């Protein structure tokens, strides 16, 4: 497998007035072609910063980042345009920001191709193929505002993929969608990754959805905390104040509703529903 993303000791410092905020603190991260990865982490962990760096929207303060052979720390404006056209596709959470509302569905997909100088016939063919792929063939000439949120996000996916990028970056792509629609989007992404060889990197808060990716990368304080998939044991991050966030699915599985009891046992802490084995 060839690497599509290579981040090495990535540092990003944001300046807010006189304040310096360290968003990434020497992040090392790699991704292979065709992988479907989710990035999770709490607010301020550096998820969005990483995504923006990978998207070429931000330049890292230090470190190295290479996407599909493009060194993103040293792009000329023309290279950046080229990178946007061929290298990477974007899918934002706010689906209205993915689409131009005054264009029809197919026109939205054609727009990047138009900007890249793709001939009309090829544009149309590719657009219809993409719509077909996401199940929106019948809505090709629909106006954006007449489409549902899920449809819009699928359409946005088509737009992001219109120029056939190597990498798709999605920032909370289902954040404004219901569970069912979210699952269908994730299924679509998985299919495209596994069947189409598309590398997909998704930022999400939703651990359940993250479970549907090939690999979960957890960021904490600008560094990679853990990575991998967990089926019976969930790896949870402990923040500096000692707070732990337990995925809802895990809580439901354990029958924990509103309250739980934390008990120190040998080699760890046991979380049980309230009213469990008192005195054990």
């Amino acid at each position, binding site marked *: 497998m060839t690497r599509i993303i290579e981040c090495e000791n990535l540092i990003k410092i944001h300046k807010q007035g006189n304040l310096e905020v360290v968003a990434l603190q020497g992040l090392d991260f790699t991704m292979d072609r065709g992988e479907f990865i989710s990035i999770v982490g709490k607010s301020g962990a550096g998820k969005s910063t990483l995504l923006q760096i990978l998207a070429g929207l931000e330049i890292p303060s230090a470190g190295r980042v290479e996407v599909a052979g493009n060194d993103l720390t040293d792009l000329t404006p023309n290279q950046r345009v080229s990178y946007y056209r061929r290298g990477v596709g974007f899918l934002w959470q706010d689906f209205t*920001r993915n689409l131009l509302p*005054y264009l029809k569905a197919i026109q939205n997909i054609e727009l990047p191709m138009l900007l890249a100088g793709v001939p009309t016939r090829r544009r149309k063919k590719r657009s219809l193929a993409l719509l077909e792929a996401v199940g929106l063939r019948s809505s090709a000439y629909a106006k954006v505002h007449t489409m549902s949120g899920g449809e819009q996000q699928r359409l946005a996916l088509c737009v992001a993929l219109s120029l056939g990028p190597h990498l798709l970056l999605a920032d909370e792509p289902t954040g404004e969608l219901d569970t069912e629609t979210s699952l269908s989007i994730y299924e679509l992404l998985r299919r495209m990754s596994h069947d189409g060889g598309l590398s997909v990197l998704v930022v999400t808060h939703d651990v359940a959805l993250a479970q549907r990716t090939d690999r979960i990368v957890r960021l904490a304080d600008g560094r990679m905390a853990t990575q991998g998939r967990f089926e019976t044991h969930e790896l949870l991050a402990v923040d500096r104040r000692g707070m732990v966030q337990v995925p809802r699915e895990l809580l439901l599985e354990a029958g924990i509703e509103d309250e739980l009891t934390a008990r120190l046992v040998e080699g760890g802490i046991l979380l049980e529903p309230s009213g469990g084995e008192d005195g054990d």
Partner: protein
Amino acid sequence: MKLVTYIGLVVRRLWAKRGILIGSLLGATLVIALLVVVPLYQDSVKAVDLRFSLQSALAEEVDATVRWPTETTNYNGETAADNRGLVLDLYASIIAEWYPTYVERIQTREFVVIPTGGAVDWLARAEAWRVEKAAIELANSQLGPTDEPQQVPGPPYPTPPREPLQVRMFTSPTLQEHLEVLDGAWPDPLLELPSGDDAAPLPLIIGEDVARLSQLGVGDVFILRPFSGLPEVFELVEIAAVVAPVDAGQKIWGVDDPMTMVYLPQETFDAWTSPVFITAVEDPWLRQSRGLTNLTATQRWIMDFDPDALQFEEVDAVRGAIAAFQAKVSQDSGGTIVASSLLPMLLDEFEVRSVTVGGPILAILALVVGGALYFLIYTSALTLEREGPEIALLKTRGASTWQTTGIHLAQSAVVAALAAVAAPYVARLLVGVTGRVPPLSDLTGGEPLQVSEVASITPYVVGGAIATFLSMGLAILPFARRPVLELRSLAARPSGSSVWQRYNLDLFAIALSIVILFQLVQRGFINTTGGEVRLDALAVVFPVLLLFTGALVLLRLLPWLLRVVGWLMTKVRGLSLALPGWHLGRNPVPYGRLALLVWLTTGLGAFALTYAGTLEQSFQDRAAFVAGTDVRIIAEEAGYLIPPESDSGAAVLRTDGAPRQSTRRAEVLAVRPDDFAAVITWRSDFGAGTPQEIFTQLRPEGEAPYLGVELPGDATELLIDGVVIPRSWAEQDELDTSKPDPSLRAMMRVFDADGRAWTIQAENDFVDSAWGTVEFDLTDGRNAYLSDPVPPLTVHALWVERSNPGGNTVLNGESMLIRNVRTVGETEVPIDLGELDTTNGLTLRPGVPASGAADAYYADLPEGVEEPSEAAIRRSPLYAEGTATMWVGPGVRTNLNPAVPALRAPVDDLYVLIDTEAAAIAGLEVGERTAFSIGSEIYDGEVVGFIGRVPAMNDRRREGRMIIDLDGLNPLLNGIPSWSFQTALARVEAPQELWIKTDDPDATVRLVNAQFLPGDEADEIVTLKESAGEFSSRPVQVGLVAVLFVGAAVSVALALAGVTGYVLLAVARRAREMGVLRALGFPRRGVAATFTVEQIAVLGLGAVIGTYGGIALMWAMLPFLQLGETATDIEPPILISVNWAVLLAYIGVVSTLLVFSVIWATRKVSARRMSEVLREVEH
């Protein structure tokens, strides 16, 4: 194909953002339309002005006249016919287009009318002469060879009576068209001169005034004789008809008094004026040929100008045609015929006015266009800020900077192109509509203003389209280069400092303004080089630059100002004020553009109102300056007329003069300070103080000048006992009868209460035969004033002269004794004339024995006469007891010697107020004494103060101004005694003007006019009301004011749109803040109020600054106005006049509209659901 797709994309974008882009399209259309309005409106208003000028011009000012003057005897019908052909051919081919009709007239110089049956019956005298001549000739024929023949007396030539009626002879090819016969019948034309001894008198037509004045009618015969010429040139005529104009109200042939003419049919006139040889030896009454030789007649054509025939576009053409016509007429006639017209001069004045008054139109339109362009840039920037996420999206979808820019530029180009298509129609509509609304509707009769399109509007359309394209399009450049993340956050984050401040362009603009101002001051706003008046291009740019520069400078200061405002607001209780206060104080920069828009709007409105007010005030000032007061009556001795009781009046004597007898003659007014100060219209910049303070300087001692001995008010007579000291009895006996009568006439010069100088001659003389009482009637004088002397009278001078001079000698060493000077009224009051000085060789010896006359008489007795006894002497009428004053006259004085020995009141020096320039040229300072020339006299005087401008002292021929005390000048001018034998005795230099302050000028004029004697009237009556009528706005000025208000209205509309847009964006940007406030429990209304207060604070500050900015701009434009209509300085200078009531009302209305737009925009946003707001906060 790709291009089509791009265009499709652009069109879709346009359609999708049609709400905003329609605003841009309207703005762009407005900008281009306003630019197109510049030539259209200027031309259209100028066309109205031209039409107005031409229609209100007198015929003499526009008509063309062609004149063939004959100086000697060369008038004849043949030449007249040749001239006619020449002139009318050229007329038809060159100027007939604008002069559709013409009249021809031939007019002689004056003839005198000599009646045949008046005091001298010339026909009878001629007949008698003829009989006498025949008799002499018969007698001579019968004489022997040695007899002396009797000489035949010359024929009796008719001579005019003492005050003959003068008439001019007149003819025209259109005689019968304009005259109707009142009596008699129109005579047949006489194509040949009647000849023969028995030829009937020539038939003549006379005007009805001639008939009335001469009391002659149809059938009457009279003699016509040239006013000058050979005595034998006269003609006997018979009245064939009396005529009157067909239309009495219409001027015919351009003649003022057609009814004082005598007429001949043209053929008769031509035949009659052919040279006839006459010798004096023939009988002029029985000539072989008839007619009038030595006739000086002028053949003249008057081409009637038709103002409606001249289109504005043809101004140059008509000017050229007139010049060509003049040249051709002169050339073809060999210089004998002269064509002239004042129309080119009128057109020149019009052109000058177009430049001087049109300049501000250009400058103001430049302002409006500048403001509208700013609006475009402003809205484009706002739009782009809102479009930041979309641009970001395009960029992330692979759009290059050029593609992003290209899409936006194409969009701007489409808007600019659409605007360019629509703008000319909008411009024509705007121009047309201005004719329907006041003040232009008064001139157009409510019709749409006819749009004149002299110059091509294409350059303006293209220029406007480029300007709007650049204004909208260029805004993309900084945006297109911004990073995606920055673009995405644009709508939620305020912009930083402006480009102007970042690159210090505002400071550069200030420097540029200063340089331009310096240049303008150096070379003037109007260039008049080469005799052509042109507007300096910098003058148009300067006001725009000034306003924008001022605005930019204030933009730098705005953050500090807002911080202060914010700080003040935080001091007020209540979160709705404190919160916006905090925001203003902490983050004032983003409000700059909003403030700038409001400045420009209120600035333009304030400027428009101030301009209109200043112009109107200037007209009033100019009218008041010309009038001087409410009513000014000008007539001989008008100063002595009595103003109505409820009014204040001041007599004013106007003359000329000079300090130090300079050749620079200044205007001089002699006034009574208090009266004058009470009536004169005054403006604070005319002098350093009130009129009262300024003019009372003429009386440094605070009192009126000394005029003489004041008599009691009830006195009706002044009596003086006196006797001429006689020669001795012996001498008298030797005197022959040719010796002059020793009686002395007593004369007195008094001033009455109105300051009128009266010369009163005593009813009886001083005689040398007895003491007598000389009586002066104080109720009348030798002057012909409209009313009797108004008491109390003041005796200014007393003198005597021989009552029967019998030659030039009026005095020769006569002496008198006088005493007991007294007045008679209700009581007898003794009068002491001791205050009067003796002058011109007169000596007074008081306290001499009253018996001196008797003593002198009896001092030398004729031979043989016995010396009378003491008792006899005492009984003599020459004898008086007590003492008397001896009046000792000097030696010989003739009536050619104006220095009359007299008792006269000492005359003070003149106190003079002089204008600073004249004083500086003459080298005079306050307190300095020198000789002043006043009128034709020289008087000593002292400068007591300086004056600036004085209303009604505006004679441009004079260099400088002086004011003197009328009561001080009066004795100098009118107090000097004069011999009664000179006609100058009663001549008085009277004040010719009466200035009246009144509330009812019409009634005042009526009442004052009633004081004139029947047949007399004022030479001129100047009223402020009429003067104000003359100083009304010309159409171009009216148009200027109209366009100003249109501009102000446009700017208000733009501001409303801009403010609404800005507030919508500002509130959207601050959704997070709103969300937080709402989450904290702030009610929706409270949030809206917070934002509203904040915006209103900025608007209020902007309005205040804009108002003063507009007034400052007016100050910058003053030099334009000061040039007036004719590129000469307006007198008095124009001062800025701010009508605060109207201005505040305007600001109030604008502020209300803006506040409503703010409230509407804020409520629209604050009405959003909280979840919606908070979701936005999330991102």
